């Protein structure tokens, strides 16, 4: 870290200390409130030039370096600022992908309203028959002059009911190998033929949806990258999604220090729970993981700034499982009573929520098994499993 970076870090810290406190993001906030607060916070950051530090001021930035942008994100990560998923998808996933694969005109057209907190996004990738095997998607896009006509069904589309734009993968050529026939689009969610049906989740909420696309028209100007280049775009999106997910997982985590305090205050057998060697061992292991993630994150920041590709997949892999285990522990520590919430136990609802939500986080944005494959193949250079799907898409079993 250079002296300039250190100075910038102090500046960001001071600004956050003044402005972030008014934007806490508690779990129990309603979805509509969270959307409004997230967009307002985004606007405030854009005005101050912190919305996209490495962009020019008209994009909510200050023409800073990539390292400065990382510093800004790191410092904001110390606060619980509101960031509803639709904004995260836009900023963290859609924009970097459009920047890399789209034209400069497309980037400015979509980035500006996003960075200024005017538009939210969703991701129309997964389908009922295409989850971990995303390239098996069946939603069709057929060219019609300067437009594309889309038909199909998407699922797990988080926050689609609050979204203005969607990043969409659709099959434009079923006669080639499945990865080669996909194209990437930006869809205006207010277009005719887009129908969003909320899915009730085990959390009781409906953060994600089924999205039905019936004769939906997308102008060719909203195609990002070349026809058939959609898989490369999808890979860019997923890399950013995994990186971002680990950040939000870390900020969702109450932290092992808080768990130690809790265990030290929980009576057990004449003493406290923290007297137990088994409890100490678990807390110590989670602390070691938590610190490991933080320190690894610092190394990742440095490696990204050097233009390297560190194995970021491990951050989501570790933090999602840890979130599940630590919230189970917070129930365990109070024994039977730990399963009940009420006015005397206001923190329990948060614990229940995190334990339930962590199960989804072990699946979304790359299931644990997919991430392990990726680590083995990309970081360790191990071979992929032999595949049965290197034939034209329309000749695959289950498709033809």
């Amino acid at each position, binding site marked *: 870290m250079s002296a300039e970076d250190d100075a910038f870090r102090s500046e960001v810290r001071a600004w956050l200390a003044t402005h972030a406190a008014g934007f806490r993001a508690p779990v129990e906030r309603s979805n509509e409130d969270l959307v409004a607060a997230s967009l307002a916070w985004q606007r405030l950051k854009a005005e101050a030039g912190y919305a996209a530090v490495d962009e020019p001021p008209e994009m909510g930035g200050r023409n800073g370096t990539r390292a400065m942008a990382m510093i800004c994100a790191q410092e904001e990560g110390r606060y619980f600022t509101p960031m509803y998923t639709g904004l995260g998808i836009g900023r963290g996933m859609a924009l970097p992908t459009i920047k890399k694969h789209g034209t400069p005109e497309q980037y400015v057209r979509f980035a500006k309203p996003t960075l200024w907190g005017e538009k939210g996004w969703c991701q129309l990738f997964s389908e009922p028959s295409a989850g971990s095997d995303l390239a098996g998607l069946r939603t069709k896009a057929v060219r019609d002059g300067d437009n594309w006509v889309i038909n199909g069904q998407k699922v797990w589309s988080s926050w689609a009911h609050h979204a203005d734009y969607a990043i969409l993968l659709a099959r434009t050529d079923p006669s080639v190998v499945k990865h080669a026939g996909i194209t990437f689009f930006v869809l205006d969610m207010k277009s005719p033929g887009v129908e969003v049906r909320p899915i009730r989740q085990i959390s009781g909420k409906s953060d994600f949806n089924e999205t039905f696309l019936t004769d939906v028209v997308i102008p060719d100007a909203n195609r990002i990258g070349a026809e058939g280049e959609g898989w490369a775009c999808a890979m860019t999106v997923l890399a950013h999604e995994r990186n971002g997910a680990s950040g939000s997982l870390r900020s969702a985590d109450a932290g092992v220090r808080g768990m130690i305090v809790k265990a030290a205050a929980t009576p057990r057998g004449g003493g406290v729970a923290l007297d137990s060697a088994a409890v100490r061992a678990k*807390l*110590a292991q989670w602390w070691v*993981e938590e*610190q490991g993630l933080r320190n690894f994150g610092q190394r990742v920041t440095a490696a990204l700034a050097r233009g390297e590709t560190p194995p970021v997949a491990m951050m989501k892999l570790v933090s999602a499982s840890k979130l599940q285990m630590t919230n189970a522990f917070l129930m365990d520590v109070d024994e039977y009573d730990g399963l009940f919430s009420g006015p005397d136990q206001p923190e329990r609802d948060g614990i229940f929520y995190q334990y339930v939500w962590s199960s989804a986080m072990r699946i979304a944005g790359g299931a644990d098994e997919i991430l392990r494959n990726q680590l083995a193949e990309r*970081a360790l250079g191990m071979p992929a499993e032999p595949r049965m799907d290197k034939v034209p898409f329309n000749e695959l079993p289950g498709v033809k």
Partner: protein
Amino acid sequence: MSLELSDEQKQLKDQVSRLLDEKATPDVLRKLITAGTGIDRDLWAQVAGLGLLGAAIPEEYGGVGLGEKDLCVIAEEMGRTVAPIPFFSSICLAAEALKLAGTAAQKAAWLPRLASGEAIGTFAWNEGPGAADAAGVTVKFAGGKVSGVKSPVADAEIADVAVVVCAGPKLVLVPLAQAGVRIEHMTGFDQLRNHAKVSFDSAAGEAMEGADAHETLRRLYDRAAIYAAFEQVGAAESAMLMARDYTMGRYTFGRQLASYQAVKHRLADILVMVELARSNALYAAQVLEADGPDLAAAAATARIGATRAYEIAARENLQLHGGIGFTWEANCHFHYRRARLLALNLGSAEVWESKLIDALTTANTPAAA
């Protein structure tokens, strides 16, 4: 401040790595196990000649005067190759104890000899079963004489001097080549680092400095835990890559063993453990060099993660080799045994987990930023 190595440290790492790859080969290790001497004198002389033993010893005492992180870099390479030399006993324990608590005369007498490799030092705290514990020490020091029994003591048979923890606690410097010292070889699980039972019968010793030996012992073991964590991380990575390479070269049912998810996922989990352990070790090294206030928590964090990574990597490496892994000619056994030694030589995981929780609850230790 960066967690990364400086360019000079990367060069140092390369230099050590080249030497050890050439000299500490599996065949050399096998011969040493058969010979039972516990040291490759030729390698020891070369390591000394490159200034590696004196890396973190001040120049006024014949060292190179580099920082603790440089020592960490060297320790990592020692771990990677299971280098058959008493580097940890002599440099990471004895020399560090002298730096922390030696009198000016003791430092002048011993540090230059440890730095040159002419003398070997070791550290004696444990007394049979149970964790090293200042309150439980029975070896006595009175009137300049040490009496009692220490075991296990690493590298005692080849050491010239030992820093002995005596009741009080007091730290006492005891030359081992004297009539009042009896050294008996112990049959050790790790066959490459010899250990012995050392009996002192009114052996001449010299008290070291430091009004509060409790504090010195804590600091010494925190520092040693960080050096050991690097040794473990280097070793864990080596075991992981050994398993990766073996499974990539072996074909079963018509395809590479490494292409099965059952194999890949085990190695991916080990990669995660190694990378987190390395990150924690690098953070601890930074705290050590900066003499930061959270040394106890950072050291325990590094040790717990590195111990787990090495134990699992060493174990799974052997298992992934299948039957060949159980043979003398395959190289899995060096790590399989060494991982157990490094898991216990400074105290078990349970000991360090408890230390960590104590450090986090008694002091206001800041988390890594």
